[in-house]
């Protein structure tokens, strides 16, 4: 069938098993923690709020998700950084380096 598809110039079918596995890992991580999508969204909004105090970020493209393996459950946040905000006077002494774009907790 793949050979025929190629002959006819059709794109090969996507490997849906990988999609299934990734979706399962996300949904099971949420099920096991008993954390809802709404809670995850609230968490995301609060993270944006806290981080925005110090760093200017691309708020529209922040992604927060969960994944689960046999060893652990991970909360993954992808936060695109635009630039650091000018530091508050009190904190100017301990100015931090620009953080990495992807943080894992």
């Amino acid at each position: 069938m793949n050979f025929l598809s190629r002959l006819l110039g059709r794109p090969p079918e996507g490997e849906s098993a990988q999609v299934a596995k990734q979706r399962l890992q996300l949904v099971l991580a949420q099920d096991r923690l008993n954390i809802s999508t709404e809670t995850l969204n609230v968490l995301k909004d609060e993270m944006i709020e806290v981080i925005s105090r110090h760093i200017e970020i691309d708020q529209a493209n922040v992604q927060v998700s969960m994944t689960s393996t046999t060893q652990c459950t991970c909360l993954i946040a992808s936060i695109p950084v635009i630039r650091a905000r000018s530091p508050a006077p009190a904190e100017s002494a301990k100015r931090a380096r620009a953080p990495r774009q992807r943080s894992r907790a």
Partner: protein
Amino acid sequence: MAGRIITLTSGKGGVGKTTATANLGVALARCAQRVVCVDADIGLRNLDVVMGLENRIVYDLVDVVEGRARLRQALIKDKRLPELQLLPAAQTRDKSAVTEKQMIKLCEDLRKEFDFILIDSPAGIELGFRNSIAPADEVIIVVTPEVSAVRDADRVIGLIEASEKPAPRLIINRLRPAMVRRGEMLDTADILEVLAIELLGIVPEDETIITATNKGQPVALENRSPAGGAFMRIARRLMGEDVPFQTFEDSSGWLERLSHLFKR
């Protein structure tokens, strides 16, 4: 020696719990074990028709629990296999007709007479499920390689672990090796990674299950079908034998293999 009480459950319906119970019962009986299959799906009984014993029911599980019949009167002997018997569910009652305590008492009585007590749990995680799990020494989770079935299995595994039963083992049912090879179906490794439990067996998708069920003759009665062979292997594993897992490398048709050649 006291028998082992094993419950087959899944969370999701339609993954093959009843078929697996019937075939494991047959397979164990063929290994000279005394087996009773207990249909715990009260109100929706089906194990009797899958085993082909529906015409011989006089009393059922609820009759025994409520004292209208003795256990021996309700048990149906399978004429094809002298070691195999069935305790049917009631069809006109519902799950609340039995309590966990009564199920435990019933299974303790069966334990004295049989080597294996296989309980076919209803789908879901409510009363019927809890009644089925309560007496179990061991639990087998039946899953198909689909997101919905795996998700429900995970939920059930969590509930069983919380109930302080030993860790359940997994039967992956209706696996389609050709689809797995194309990357279009979750494979055994994916499912085991996600669920993190021990594998007990893999049963390939097999059309003979349908024709066998039509006739009320479980596939494990004979050696010919792939699914029947898979259940025989699971039975031997349950008895403690170290049976390697099948890889299903050669089960694809020539067309499939040919297309694979061109894919490289």
